[in-house]
């Protein structure tokens, strides 16, 4: 152990293990996390090889598939041993994706983070029974396609159509223009063989807005793209280059009626549209993903600041006073200013994310009982927290990189890669400015009803202020 680091550890005034336990949420959770890490790292040697930076784009994908298959087969093993369940797989998969085993993301990430939750949240019981077991054991690999080449966060503007053909009892998926092509879904390029697609539903000549459909995109045996689809990968990006983000176009592609996810709205065999009890019910999936993103930010921020602070304890540079030895750069207040607030932010975000997760589950329970009262508040909260935590984390990771001087610029420091992963989150699942405007809409409405309305908890301060 480096002597400077050891000295730092010797002078720590609190019990480090006590804080770790607090961060994990209790000794049992710490043990569970360590168990998961042990399993995931049990085949560590197979992940070692040429650093990804020296591979071509194609080789990076192939390497990512190899590593992801090894890593997720460990998750499958944990499932078989009863160590994971639907309720805690967020921790399991989040831990795996947040680990450096899959350094630049994984083509299988969206399968767990969006494909399965979408089936859970939007599929009826029959659909869940049909698709979830296959998705859970990865006998099918899914992606989630919402964004189009010409359409982002404003989902009502999506162009892809799903027109019901009552005679054939099928939906016809079609991309009317180039801008209607699905664009960006992780794993869609060459990995997934199924995909949930968000499209404008037409039945009996009437448009009923956007709905979700489960689409087979590749043959389960040969993996060849199915006829009527144009599918591929979108190309090199700033980061996340192992994620295999894809594009998808439809040329009057037919799917069975039962492939529309029908937990909320339905299309009957004769084409009759049965409206959802509440048009906002689909917001649940979006909120879930944004909560996951906030937790991801906590992981990335904790990693970045751990790297930068340990380095700052080891690195010596310049003299504070003439004649003295070079001092640890951590002794400079400017360095402390750069880094310690990042530690504080990591704790603030984790604590807030935990609370958001609790609120999400409470509101979900209320939704099941038909109570939608807190849904707008939850949605507004998830939007602004996703926006602020991703932007702040990107700024903090950059501070950490700068705090490490030229060495922080090395790919081997992991800081550039971490920045690439974090800054992508400012854009995906809702561009930050758009999300803040959605929060603003809720706040303005709330403000205009201050005198007449009982305020929900997160905005109650507006009345007292």
């Amino acid at each position, binding site marked *: 152990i*480096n002597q400077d680091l050891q000295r730092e*550890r010797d002078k*720590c*005034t*609190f019990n*480090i293990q*006590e*804080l*770790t336990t*607090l*961060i*994990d949420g209790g000794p049992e959770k710490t043990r569970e996390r360590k168990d998961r*890490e042990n399993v995931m*790292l049990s085949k*560590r040697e197979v992940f070692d090889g040429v*650093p990804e930076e*020296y591979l071509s784009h194609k080789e990076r994908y192939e390497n990512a598939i190899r590593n992801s298959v090894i890593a997720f087969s460990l998750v499958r093993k944990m499932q078989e041993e009863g160590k994971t369940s639907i309720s805690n797989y967020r921790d399991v998969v989040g831990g795996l994706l947040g*680990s*450096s*085993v899959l350094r630049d993301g994984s083509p299988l990430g969206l399968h767990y983070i969006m494909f399965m939750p979408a089936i859970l949240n939007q599929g009826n019981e029959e659909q869940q029974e049909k698709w979830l077991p296959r998705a859970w054991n990865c006998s099918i690999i899914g992606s989630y396609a919402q964004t189009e080449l010409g359409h982002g966060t404003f989902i009502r503007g999506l162009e892809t159509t799903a027109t019901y053909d009552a005679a054939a009892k099928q939906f016809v998926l079609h991309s009317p223009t180039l801008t209607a092509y699905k664009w960006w879904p992780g794993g869609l390029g060459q990995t997934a063989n199924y995909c949930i697609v968000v499209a404008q539903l037409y039945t009996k000549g009437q448009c009923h807005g956007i709905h979700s459909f489960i689409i087979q995109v590749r043959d389960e045996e040969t993996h060849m793209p199915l006829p009527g689809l144009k599918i591929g990968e979108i190309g090199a990006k700033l980061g996340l280059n192992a994620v295999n983000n894809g594009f998808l176009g439809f040329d009057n592609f037919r799917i069975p009626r039962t492939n529309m996810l029908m937990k909320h709205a339905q299309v009957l065999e004769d084409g009759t549209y049965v409206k959802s009890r509440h048009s906002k019910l689909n917001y649940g999936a979006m909120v879930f993903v944004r909560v996951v993103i906030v937790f991801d930010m906590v992981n990335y921020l*904790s*990693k970045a*600041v*751990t*790297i930068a602070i*340990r*380095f700052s*304890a*080891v690195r010596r540079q310049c003299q504070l006073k003439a004649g003295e030895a070079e001092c640890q750069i*951590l002794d400079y207040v400017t360095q*402390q*200013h750069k880094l310690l*607030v990042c*530690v*504080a*932010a990591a*704790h*603030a975000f984790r*604590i*807030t994310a*935990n609370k958001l997760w609790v609120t999400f589950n409470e509101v979900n329970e209320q939704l099941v009982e038909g109570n939608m009262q807190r849904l707008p508040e939850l949605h507004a*909260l998830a939007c*602004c*927290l996703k*926006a*602020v935590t991703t932007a702040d984390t990107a700024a903090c990771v950059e501070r950490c990189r700068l705090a490490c001087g030229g060495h922080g610029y*090395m790919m*081997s*420091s*992991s*800081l550039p890669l971490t920045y690439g992963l974090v800054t992508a989150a400012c854009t995906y699942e809702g561009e930050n*400015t758009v999300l*803040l405007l959605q*929060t*603003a809409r809720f*706040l*303005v409405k709330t*403000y205009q009803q201050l005198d007449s309305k009982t305020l929900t908890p997160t905005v109650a301060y*507006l009345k007292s*202020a």
Partner: protein
Amino acid sequence: AADGFCDSWSNTTDGIIRGFQVVAMRKIGQCVTVMTNRVNRGMSFEDAWNMTSVQLVAAAEAHCRVIIMSTFLEEVQEMSRTVSPQLKDVLYQLVELYCVYWALEKLSDLLLYTPISQKEVELLRLWYEETLTKLRPNAVGLVDAFDLRDEMLQSTLGSYDGRVYERLMEEAMKSPLNAEPVNHTFHKYLKPFMQGKL
């Protein structure tokens, strides 16, 4: 509304959070006023919204800062009932650092919407610097507590043992360019160029 409301805002985190609540409330209120005026002058609501959107984004961010800071403080207060006194001190220092940092970052908002004085700003700066000094001895302990194994970090700079320079060299040796003593481009391009033969 802020008059007398933030009397203790510059020396307690609770006060800073109240200050931020006032900022958020005033910003939202300001957006509503501006949009209403625009609509009253004949602008459509949608255009008024678009024209005000920069302020709306700032208002939403201010609201989010209130949520993060207040949740952080409340939960730490809750946790502090069960943790050791030493850890309790550190947790409160982190809350203070976070709140004071953002108070200083958003000083223009506080100056605009709360009765903060120059003297109080100076005190905030001192408070911030003192908190950094208090946290300094625990900096490494704080990140050790994240309990991130080297295999998870995969960083030359951040490993637990601090063998930074050795790891940087080990990684440098993985560069494919170091696999051979002379790269073929020397003979093909560089040498002819250096000898003026190109």
